[in-house]
Each structure stands twice: as C-alpha cells, then as structure tokens.
C-alpha cells in the first residue's frame, strides 16, 4: 500500500503466468469508479491511496450513481480525472459552501468535499466551520499534509513547529506564525458534527482503519445523521524533501505528535 499512485501500483497486473484455477479467485482489482489512467501525483503521495479508498467505499455502499464530489483548489483539483462520478470544482476554500448548495437541492444524493489543508483550514476556514456548525449532511475528506503542495511548498496552517517550507525557510516559528491548527479538535467545540476523526495512510493497518472511517462517514450521511469530517495525515515527500519511506516514517514518528490519531467525536448513535 506504499504506492501513492492509484492508477499504477496497486491494481497492477502480475506478469507471472497463473493456472486457470488460480486466476478464478480474484483477491484484488481496480474499483469500478477508479479510472484506468495515470495520476499526476508525485511518488509516495497519499492522494492516490485516498482516491482508491474513496472509489472502493462508494462502490461498496452502492452509491456510485448517487455520489457528487466537490474538488478543491490544490493538488487534488484533478480528482475528477481519476474517480468516475459526478464532480464539480469549487473556488479555493469554498467547497463546503458549494456542497451545501448541492446537498440542499439534492438531499437524496451523497455529497462530499475532498480538500487539502490550505483549502480547508486556511482560505476556507469560515466555510468549513459554518458548514459544520449548520450540521450540513455532507462528508468532508480532509487531506492534511502540512504544506501547500500545488504552489510548491509554502507553510500551511497545519505545518509543524520548526518545519522548513518555502515561506518558513528557517522553520515555522510560532512566535510569528502561530501553531499547527487542529481542525478536528476545533470542530469538536461545535454541537452539530457527528463524526470527527483523524487517521493516516502510511501502513496497511492505517489504510484499513481509514477505509472503515470513510465508510462510516458516508453512512452517517446516507442515514441523515449529519456532518462528518475525516482528516487524513498524508505524506508529501516532494515538499518535505524526503524519500517516500522517510515521509511515511515521519508521519508515524513525528506528525502524529502534533496531530494525534483517533476518533475525536462519534455521536452517530446518540439519542
């Protein structure tokens, strides 16, 4: 599961010849909605894994034909080129407002946003908080890689203290730039959200946990329970200036100190 490229690594056909009886039992294949194309993502990026999980979950829930995605501005803007459902782009940070309009018009559809940390927690923080506070019945997939990837590595609101970026060349100094912003904990102050969780995709175990949480988040929406947000700590080897493996270890060993993994709120079953 270490390959970040949805289209390349994971569903790849083996070159080894197999007997007919071996071929009959399919253990792993491309989800229906994951388009058979190369992604533009860098090696080791977490978006590929998340796109695959998204496609798997929507298919397993039987809602591919009801799904409407809202793509962000950022590295994942081209998500619609990879996942074969209805999509719209949103202006930078505005995905929750766009999703609000979509969901209120189509309460029977499954509407989700897919956003990065700059989009969701910086320029779009107002839209994020207010959609959550209204308890919009949408699912928010929040990819937190602690940096602006598409614009080549500037500080994000989630950048770690001391982390070097293009705009914090000597490391993030909280005296002048504040502290890593914990979105799940912030939203946990609100009454309306029903599921807030932070997870990652750096080990097979984490990928399975992330898939389960993602599924639960969509189920919340399908059962009209309300707003859910799944935050995914995601590696950005390119702008962390690491190899993919170093980036994966960095999340497990360091990023999770600032952003502890776990379910922050789950009131799906509340009375």
């Amino acid at each position, binding site marked *: 599961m270490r390959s970040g490229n949805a289209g390349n690594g994971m569903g790849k056909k083996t070159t080894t010849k197999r007997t007919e009886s071996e071929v009959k039992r399919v253990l792993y294949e491309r989800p229906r909605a994951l388009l058979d194309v190369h992604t533009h993502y860098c090696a080791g990026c977490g978006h590929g894994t998340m796109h695959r999980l998204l496609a798997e979950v929507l298919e397993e829930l039987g809602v591919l034909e009801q*799904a409407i995605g809202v793509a962000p501005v950022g590295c994942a803007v081209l998500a619609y080129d990879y996942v074969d459902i*209805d999509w719209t782009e949103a202006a930078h940070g505005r995905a929750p407002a766009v999703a609000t*309009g979509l969901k209120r018009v189509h309460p029977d559809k499954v509407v989700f946003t897919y956003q990065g940390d700059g989009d969701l927690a910086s320029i779009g923080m*107002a839209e994020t908080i207010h959609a959550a506070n209204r308890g919009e019945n949408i699912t928010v997939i929040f990819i937190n890689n602690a940096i602006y990837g598409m614009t080549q590595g500037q500080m994000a609101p989630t950048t770690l203290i001391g982390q070097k970026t293009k705009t914090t060349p000597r490391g993030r100094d909280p005296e002048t730039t504040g502290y890593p912003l914990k979105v799940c904990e912030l939203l946990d102050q609100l009454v309306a959200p029903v599921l807030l969780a932070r997870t990652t995709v750096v080990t097979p175990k984490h990928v399975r946990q992330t898939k389960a949480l993602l599924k639960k988040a969509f189920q919340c929406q399908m059962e009209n329970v309300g707003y859910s947000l799944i935050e995914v700590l995601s590696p950005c080897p390119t702008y962390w200036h690491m190899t993919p493996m170093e980036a994966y270890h960095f999340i497990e060993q360091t990023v999770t100190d600032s952003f502890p993994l776990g379910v922050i709120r789950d009131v799906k079953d509340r009375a």
Partner: protein
Amino acid sequence: MDSEQPEGKVALVSGNEAAGEAAIRAGCRFYAGYPITPQNELTAYIADQLPLRGGVFIQAESELAAINMVFGASAAGTRAMTSSSSPGISLKQEGISYMVGCELPAVIINVQRAGPGLGNISPAQGDYYQATRGGGHGDYRCISLAPFSVQEVCDLTYLAFDLADAYRTPVILLADGMIGQMMEPVRFDHLPAPSPTPRPWALTGTPGRKRNVIKSLRLPPEELEAFNLKLQDVYATIEQREVRLEVTGPDDAEVLLAAYGTSARICRQIVERPLRQLPFKVALFRPITLWPFPTAKLAELAEKARGILVVEMSAGQMVDDVRMAVAGRCPIELLARMGGNIPSAAEITEKLITLFA
C-alpha cells in the same frame, strides 16, 4: 406583501420585495444571502416565502459562502439567486467569475449603495463598471439589467432567470437603494409559469448517463482560448439579441438626457412634467440593458441631437459607453452626483439650460 395576490389586483410593495416575489414566480428555488443594507427586505421576503413555496433559503456566513452556495445549487440544476449591495457584490466577484468559467446560470441582484469602501447606505450608481465589464478576473461579461420602477424590478427579475438559462451565464440586476426601498403598485399576475431550460449538464448523480464534471480549470492554453472564444461568441449573440432600451419624449428632440435606474427616473420627470418651459425639446434615452449597451440606437439618436446630457449617480461611468456609441456625432456633457446624493429635477433642468439654451 401578500403572496396570495388575487388575479388582476395590484399590490403596494417595495422594489426589494418585488424582486423576491418575482424570483419565486420565475421558479427560483434556492437563495443564499448575507445581511447588508439597503437590500435586507429582499432577504427577509425570501426567508419568509421561499421555504413555504418549495425552495431553500440559507443565511450564509459570508458573501463568499452565499455566492458559492448559489454555485452549488446551480450546479445541482436548480434556478438560484443571491442578492446584496455594493460592498457585498465586490466579495461575490470571485464566485461570479467561477460561474462564468463553469457556464452556470444564476441571478445576482445588486441594490447599489455609495462607495468606495464602506461608503454609506444611500442610493448610488458607482458599480456600473463592475456590472458591465465582468467585475471579477478574466475575460467575461454579465448581462446587466437596470430597473427604474418597482414594476420593472419585478419584470426584469423574472426575465433575468430566463436570460441566465438561455445563455448559461450569471445575470446581474443592477438596482440601487432608492429602487429597492421605494414602494409602488405592482402587478405579478401577468408573469407566466416559469419554463427553466433542460439542464443535461447538471450534477444529479449518474443513473442512466455518463458522469458530468463542472469545472473552469483548462490547463492547455489552446483549450482555454477555445473556451474564451466560445464565450465571446455567446456575448456576440447577446449583443445582437438582448439589447433593451426605452426612449421617452418627442421624436424630434434636440437634446437627449441619458440615464438609467434612479437617475433615469428623475430625468423622465423633466421630459414628462417639466418644472419650467425649456426652449428646446428634450427626450430621455434609457438603457434597460446596461450590457449589452444600446449602442446602435444611441448612435442613431445622436445623429439628430444637438447634444446629450448624461446624468449619473457616480463620477461618470455609463458616460464612457455613451461616448463610444456617439463617437463624436454630438457633444456629450455629464451631470455626476456621488456619495449617495440623488440629482434633483431642478438641478438637471438648470444644467440643461446652461448647456443648451
């Protein structure tokens, strides 16, 4: 006002309320807005009526959120609207540009107030450039409709939804604080049942069809240029088909007043009920579409005119379009009031006499 208006009856309503009622009658089923004076009666009317009549009202957390909720609702395939006043409309420009880039219809009502900055809450016409030149980033135009009575607010709001559908574009209704707040007798019963155009591009989930993707990102320059050329073709069609104007006064007028909205309202008084006898005949040229501007008609009138007095509640913005249309055929003068001041009939009359007697 009472939405159960009996057939054949007139109602006494404000321009803001008339816009709300006309929008609902035009089939608008989604509205998102943010409080700002002098358009709050519109939001209040919609908040009261729209949910009772099968639609969604949302008080958004910001102007940005409001326009982007409208973006989402339009993408979902429903007729959608937002309204605001000048400072709020500035904030909505990002969303309007994106809607153009995504070919999404919507109606945006600007009940103008005086600027720049926070300015004040008095009527003004300082947003003419913003409304007629696109307003946000990129090469685009929005159809801009300028009502000068409460009845026209009603009729043009209804029309705005049809135009937005027909050309898949945001349409601006450019009113001002005076038009929005004043009350006049209005009829709604002549408005036909709405007929939204089919929206095969809308996001509705994919049963039985291939997916739709609504986007304005076009990375290859050739692709983006081709899209821009397509927009320009649409604009050429709009300029050909959608020009609307009114000329009030004698056919053989020597002097023309040129004004829209509230300032046209004052000017019409001079043409129809002059304060004093003028030693020359005056007519009023009133664009109803500010874009597309009625260039050809004005050029024709200018051939026979001794001169034109443009009256604006701005430093002079429409006067640029008048100059381009007239192209030297006759002299053009300007009476400009700013800061929320409305030019008086006496002031305009004096100016006419000074210039043309």
